[in-house]
């Protein structure tokens, strides 16, 4: 089966610093895949390169057979990829509803947009209550819901989640990963970058281990949980 997302030989560099070195990875339709790694391993750089926010120095990104690595981010979005940035990054000076509408910016505003907005608000009832509030006034957990809701508004085929658990309370983190499974059940594939290996492996089908910009291993969640390195470094046992 050919992959939905196929990243081959990806190289990202900031000046002389090579942040991502020849990374190959793929995500199949209906899968949750995780990139595990420490701070500065290059997880965000991979995500940003797929989204078109940094120009890769080398390698290719193909999505459903379409080459994306030369496109600007708004074109990548049009092909069906949405981004939940690290640290939420909601538009704090826009209202909750305006944030959601921004998520659907590239889509023609029609009944489907309205229906999707209702779906998102059903998923996160607090967003409906706070519809007219400025997004900057929401709590961290609520902002994460809004960031996810905003990404879903474009009706993506693939969701890129960058450190979704960062800075959230443990209880919120748990429900967040449950939510990832719920999103997958709606037919949306997910690629997430995470430091929280335990939670990520609980929901992911497959995980890659990224160290200093290189993929150092990969396997199904059960294989990874059993792996010596992962246990020692990331699961604290």
């Amino acid at each position, binding site marked *: 089966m050919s992959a939905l997302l196929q990243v081959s030989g990806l190289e990202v560099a900031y000046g002389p610093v090579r942040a991502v070195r020849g990374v190959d990875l793929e995500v199949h339709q209906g899968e949750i895949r995780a990139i595990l790694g420490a701070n500065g391993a290059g997880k965000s750089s991979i995500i940003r390169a797929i*989204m*078109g*926010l940094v120009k890769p120095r080398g390698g290719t990104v193909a999505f459903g057979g379409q080459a994306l690595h030369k496109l*600007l*981010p*708004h074109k*990548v*979005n*049009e092909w069906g990829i*949405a*981004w939940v*940035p690290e640290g939420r*990054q909601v*538009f*704090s*000076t*826009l209202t909750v509803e*305006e944030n959601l*509408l*921004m*998520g*659907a*910016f*590239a*889509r023609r*505003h029609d009944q489907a947009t309205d229906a999707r907005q209702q779906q998102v608000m059903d998923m996160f009832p607090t967003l409906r209550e706070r519809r007219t509030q400025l997004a900057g006034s929401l709590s961290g957990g609520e902002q994460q819901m809004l960031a996810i809701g*905003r990404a879903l508004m*474009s009706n993506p085929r693939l969701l890129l989640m960058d450190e979704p658990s960062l800075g959230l309370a443990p209880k919120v983190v748990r429900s967040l990963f449950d939510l990832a499974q719920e999103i997958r059940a709606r037919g949306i594939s997910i690629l997430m970058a995470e430091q929280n290996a335990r939670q990520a492996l609980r929901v992911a089908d497959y995980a890659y281990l990224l160290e200093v910009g290189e993929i150092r291993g990969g396997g199904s969640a059960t294989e990874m949980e059993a792996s010596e390195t992962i246990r020692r470094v990331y699961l604290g046992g």
Partner: protein
Amino acid sequence: MEQFVQQLVNGIMAGSTYAVVALGFGLVFSVMRVVNLAHPEIFMIGAYVAFVVITGLHVPDAGLDVLAALAVFLGVLLVAMLTTGAAGLVLERLVIRPTRGTYILTPFIATAGVSIALQNSAQRLFGPDPVRVPSVIPAYTFTLGGVRVSSMQLATFLTAVAIMLALRYYVHSTRWGRATRAVAEKPDVAAACGVNVNLVSQLTVGIASIMAGAAGVALGLLYTSAAPFMGLLYGLKSFICMLVAGNRHIEAIMAVGLLLGVVEAMVTGYISSNLRDAVAFALLLAVLFFRPQGLFGSYEV
């Protein structure tokens, strides 16, 4: 008291154009983090368009009836806005877009170069001395309770108010206005949401330039003159207005522009017109000394 109200009115009328030019600076800076130093020269182009069109029409001095005058005024405004809008698009494509997102001083210096080139082109084309812009609006003075407002003051003010209301509507109530606010806050996230940031950049500089062009026409007619370096002092004051207000809220920039006009009118009326600029600058700098981020907050560079 009557003199106070009179100066207040004069100040608001004149300040409205500061507000419009300052809004252009603020809009471009907040959306693209670019200080567009060519902005005052776009304003200057607006005044010269008024000069060229009205001179070309051979309008007799104050010899038009009200309707014809209004038609000519609106026509001149339209031509100037189209011209400066086009100039803004060229400026964006050739100078701002290639330098945006690099070091903050790069677009600063690049647009400064454009500004100098435009000043000297105007000098070359129209001569170094101010040219006389024939007034098209019949001179008429309205009097209300002892306070007098000239027809041209009123036309300037109404033009500025219309522009500010239009901008406010665009930014707060349209789809592209929403995208513009999103780009101002987080360009990467907006782009990932499907916003073509280059298009927003183009729209923003275009709109700012159209506004500056309209302000140039209004001011050219109000003072019946256009000059190659008229943008310098005007631009500097508007720029400082934007800094004082902070670039987060367009309403704040409007208010500070009007306030500067009032301060200047008060100094002219009660102290001396010689001290007008000195007092205005001192006051603006004093505010910046205590609140470097502006009165109502600014986006970080």
